[in-house]
């Protein structure tokens, strides 16, 4: 157990952080150093001002109203996934630092059950969305459009979510212990607290982190760079 956690949840995390940021850096550098087309690709109607263009880009990127119009179901699942992922991300910030106000208001018990509910809902929604995507891709009339990359990413994502949910629903370890582990990583004095190691979810943390590591290391080399690129391409829409 200790070796497994050391690999996936300590050294794997450092390696992942390096690969992720370096990979994204290289990708953005490649984009930035490729000359733009001199021909404008924008479509009409176009906002007249720079502010208007940026507002339209943000709307198109975060809300994708046109996609909603043409395939509402896919849009709904995509929205659910991205919002739930955002909620999960915000939830995971507790690993860095406990929230300032909420725990005082709710008390330790209240905070734990709030986190259980919020995290549980987010985790469930993400899982449902990923399963929908796998189904749509596998059984849709356009299934031959997919390439292995698509399934690899969905598989890794499913692994991350299922193991996260397992810790959330079946674990009796709470945020404080996980925070001790994560803060130790940030301070470069990594260690895994005894409470996690001896709990029933030590191996789920290890496996959760294994999937997280693989997912984030692959991120910069996959289509997921849309997380950054979509801002640029949606701005091109109005150039």
């Amino acid at each position, binding site marked *: 157990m200790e070796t497994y956690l050391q690999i996936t949840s300590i050294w794997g995390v450092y390696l992942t952080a390096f690969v992720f940021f370096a990979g994204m850096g290289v990708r953005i550098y490649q*984009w930035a150093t490729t000359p733009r087309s001199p021909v*404008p690709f924008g479509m009409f109607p176009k906002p007249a001002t720079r502010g208007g263009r940026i507002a339209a880009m943000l709307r198109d990127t975060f809300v994708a109203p046109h996609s909603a119009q043409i395939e509402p179901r896919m849009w709904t699942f995509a929205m659910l996934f991205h919002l739930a992922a955002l909620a999960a991300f915000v939830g995971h910030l507790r690993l860095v630092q406990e929230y300032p106000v909420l725990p005082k208001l709710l008390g330790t018990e209240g905070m734990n059950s709030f986190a259980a509910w919020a995290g549980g809902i987010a985790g469930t929604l993400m899982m449902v969305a990923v399963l929908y995507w796998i189904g749509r891709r596998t059984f849709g009339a356009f299934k031959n459009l997919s390439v292995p990359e698509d399934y690899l990413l969905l598989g890794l994502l499913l692994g991350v979510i299922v193991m996260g949910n397992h810790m959330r629903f079946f674990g009796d370890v709470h945020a404080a212990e996980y925070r001790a582990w994560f803060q130790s990583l940030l301070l470069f004095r990594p260690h895994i607290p005894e409470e996690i190691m001896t709990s029933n979810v030590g191996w789920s943390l290890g496996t959760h982190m294994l999937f997280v590591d693989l997912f984030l290391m692959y991120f910069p080399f996959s289509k997921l760079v849309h997380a950054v690129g979509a801002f640029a391409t949606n701005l091109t829409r109005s150039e």
Partner: protein
Amino acid sequence: MDAQALQTIVGVIDKRMTRQVKQYLDICARCAICKDACHQYVGTDDLTYLPARRAELIRQVYKKYFDSAGRLVPALYEARDPDDALLDELYTSCYACTGCRRCMYYCPFSIDTQQIVAIGKAMLIAVGRGQEMLGQLADAALFKGENVEMFRDVLVSGFKDIEAEVREITGDPEATIPVDKQGADILYVALAGAHSIRPAAVIFHEAGVDWTISLFEAANYGYFFGDPEKARLIAKRFMDEAKRLGVKEVVVPECGHAYRVAEIFYEAWAKEALPFKVSHILEVVDRLIKQGRITVEKGRIEGRVTYHDPCQIARNGGIYEQPRDVVRALTDDFVDLIPNRAEQWCCGGGGGIVAIDELRDVRLKSGSKKVEQLKASGASVLACPCENCRLQIEDLNEMHGLGLQVRQVIDLVVEAMPLPRSASAS
């Protein structure tokens, strides 16, 4: 595929790559939201015509030669060499694409499949697999550009014939089609064929516009073929003419891509600012009606009239309202197609596909949405300001027995003008 051809293809991708297209290739999620936006995929249910699939073929080669992950684990991206099978599918999917960019409108990342397809066409051209007919038409236009004196007499005598008709229609024996008129306000660049010249000449004459006609046509097969250099040179023929004559405005006819080439692309291609403005003929006609320089009467056009937005002047050119205002000036019974404007369905006839025999089948199938729209409108007259759209919709009209009159907008305008012989103007 021999090594030489492979190298040529890879070189072309490298040369034609732009930041935007690189981003498109890198970020497409293969979510297939674009599938229902494309009239060809909707009309055929064939994966070849799914927008992201068209891009996928180019992406497969790009991944293999321009992406470290693709080089390392090609199987993950189905990255591969451009073999015969790939190039065959690429030919069909690229030359079938009408460049309507309806897929871009609905894509969550606004991916411009037309620009990716442009790289696909460049790959094909590089290894001698460009569409032959489009290539020949482009070369013919270039030949004419270089040898215009050879054509002058025939052209001028053609203009004289049309002039005679204009005199009859307007009842004015002095009406002319001015050629090479130095210092005219407008240079009208028509299409090959009297139909795009006669009604425009009538309108210009009645409005007292100081105009002159171009010796060249506005249609640009270099653009359809997929060779931006040829496209530039074809447009340059009349841009140079306009500069030489010192006109204030170049007016393109009812032809979608001609407008986009002249107004949106040309300055960037030629790396120069034009000393005159570029307008679509319907922008000018709208202006003339609103200024009261021509008179149109309602009631002369019978039946309900609807309007089709050609993709290249509407979604891709920004002209939505002027043609509608023109049509509304001609009739009280106007109804828009649904959806319309930026969401208008492509008719299926753009991108040069009407000139490609082997794609006739897909082209006709891809009109299914347009047919539905037209039927639902209950209109008996279609005002349609683009030659390619009209050719396609005429075919659909016949095939589906729609009983529609498919008309140029300027023909309808002339018909609504109180002239001695307006009824037979077209």
